[in-house]
C-alpha cells in the first residue's frame, strides 16, 4: 500500500511538473496577488509591515484554491480515476496521495517563494523563519482540504465556483492561526507558539478527516 502511495505521488508530481499550467500558474498567481496589496493599499512601509503576514496568507490560500481544480479533473475525465478506484489500494489512500502530491507541487514551492515576497512587503526579517514554518505546515492542511473540495465537486458543471464556496469557510481557522503563528502581534503579546501548536492540530485533524470524506465523495461520483 505504501508502494501504491509513493507511485501515485510520484506520478502526480511528474504530471504537475511536466504538463503546462500546473506549478508555474500557482506560483505566478501567488506573485500577482501579493503585488496587488501594495498597489491597492499604498506603499506606506510601516503599514505594509503590519499587513505583510496576513497578505501573504491570503495569497497562499487563493493560490492553493486556484490549483485545487486540477487535482481530480483530468483523472476523472480520462478514466484513470476509475482505474485507481478498482485498484488494490483503497480509495482513501488514493485521496491522501493526491493531496500530498498537490502539497508538494503547490504548498511547498509557495512557502519557498515566501521570503523574497516578504521582503518586498517590508516584513520583519526576524519573523521569516516562523512564517515559512507556519506556511509549510499550514499549506499541508490547505492542500488536504482543497483535495477534499476537488473530490466533492469533481465532474460537476461550475465545480470551480462551488469549490471556493465549500472550502473557503473551512480555511478560515487556518488563516487565523496561520497568521498568528507567523508572528503577527495580537493584542500586544505574541501568540506564535500556541498558534503553531493549534495549526499542527488542525493539520492532524485534516489528515484524518479529509481523505475519508474525499474517498466517500469519489465513490458517490464514480458509482
Amino acid at each position, binding site marked *: 500500500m505504501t508502494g501504491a502511495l509513493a507511485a501515485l505521488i510520484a506520478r502526480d508530481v511528474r504530471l504537475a511538473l511536466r504538463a503546462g499550467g500546473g506549478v508555474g500558474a500557482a506560483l505566478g498567481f501567488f506573485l500577482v496577488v501579493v503585488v496587488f496589496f501594495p498597489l491597492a493599499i499604498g506603499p506606506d512601509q510601516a503599514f505594509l509591515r503590519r499587513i505583510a503576514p496576513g497578505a501573504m496568507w491570503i495569497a497562499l490560500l487563493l493560490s492553493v484554491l486556484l490549483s485545487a481544480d486540477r487535482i481530480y479533473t483530468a483523472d476523472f475525465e480520462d478514466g484513470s480515476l476509475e482505474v485507481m478506484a478498482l485498484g488494490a489500494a483503497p480509495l482513501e489512500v488514493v485521496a491522501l496521495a493526491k493531496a500530498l502530491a498537490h502539497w508538494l507541487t503547490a504548498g511547498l514551492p509557495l512557502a519557498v517563494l515566501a521570503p523574497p515576497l516578504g521582503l518586498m512587503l517590508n516584513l520583519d526579517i526576524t519573523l521569516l523563519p516562523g512564517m515559512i514554518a507556519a506556511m509549510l505546515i499550514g499549506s499541508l492542511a490547505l492542500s488536504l482540504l482543497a483535495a477534499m473540495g476537488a473530490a466533492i465537486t469533481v465532474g460537476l458543471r461550475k465545480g470551480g465556483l462551488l469549490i471556493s*464556496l465549500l472550502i473557503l469557510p473551512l480555511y478560515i481557522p487556518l488563516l487565523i492561526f496561520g497568521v498568528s503563528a507567523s508572528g503577527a502581534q495580537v493584542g500586544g503579546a505574541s501568540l506564535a507558539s500556541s498558534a503553531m501548536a493549534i495549526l499542527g492540530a488542525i493539520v492532524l485533524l485534516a489528515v484524518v478527516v479529509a481523505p475519508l470524506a474525499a474517498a466517500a465523495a469519489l465513490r458517490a461520483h464514480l458509482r
Partner: protein
Amino acid sequence: MFNYLANPSRFLKVSGYALPVLAPLTAAVFLYAYYLALVVAPPDYQQGETVRIMFVHVPASALALGVYVFMAIAHILGFVLRHPLADAAARAAAPIGAVFTVISLITGALWGKPMWGTYWVWDARITSMFILLLLYLGYMAVWKAVDEPHRAAKIAGIVAIVGVINVPIIKFSVEWWNTLHQPASLLRPGGAAIAPEILTPLLWCMGAFALLFATLLLINLRAEVVARRVRQMELARVGSVA
C-alpha cells in the same frame, strides 16, 4: 414510528393530519410568547428596551446552530439506516436554518449598534456565525449542482458532516477567545444567569421558534416528497414514450 414513516405515501398521510394541528399551535405559542416578551417582561436595568431584541436573537441563533446539527444527524442516519426521508429532511431544513442564521446576524447587528456602538465587529462568535451562513449556502449549492438526487444526497451529506465541526467552534468561541460577545448565560454550569422575569418569556420564545422550525420543516419535506414523486412520474412517462 421511524420505519413506519419511511413509506412516502404514509408520510404524506400522517403529516397531512399533523400539519393542521401543528401550524395553529405554533401560531398560538408565538402570540403568547411574544405577548410575554414584548408586553409583560420588564425592561433590563442596563440595556433598557433593547433587551427585547434578545427575544428574537437568542432563539434564532440557537436554532441556526441546532438546525445544522439536525442536518448532519439526518445525513448520518441516511448513511447508516438508508432511511429514504433522512436526506430529504436535511435538504428541507437547510433553507430554514439559513434564514435563522440571517435573522440572528441582523438582530445581532441591530442590538450591537446601541449597545456596542457598532453594527458589526470581527469578533469570534460573529465571524463564526457568518461562516455558518456560508456553510449553509455551500450545502444548498451542492444540492443544486448535482443533477442525480441519490448522488446529490451523498455528496451534500459529506459537506454537512464535515461542516458540523464548525458548530462546537461557534458554541464555545465565546469561552475560548475573550471577545466582545458575552459568554453563555443560558446553558452553563450553575444554572442560567438570567432573571426569571426575562428567562421565562425567553424560554417561551425558544419554544415558539422550535415549533416554527418543525412546522416549516414538515411543509418543506412534504413538498420535497411530492417533488420526488413528480420526478418519478416524469421519468416513467419519458421511458414509456421512448
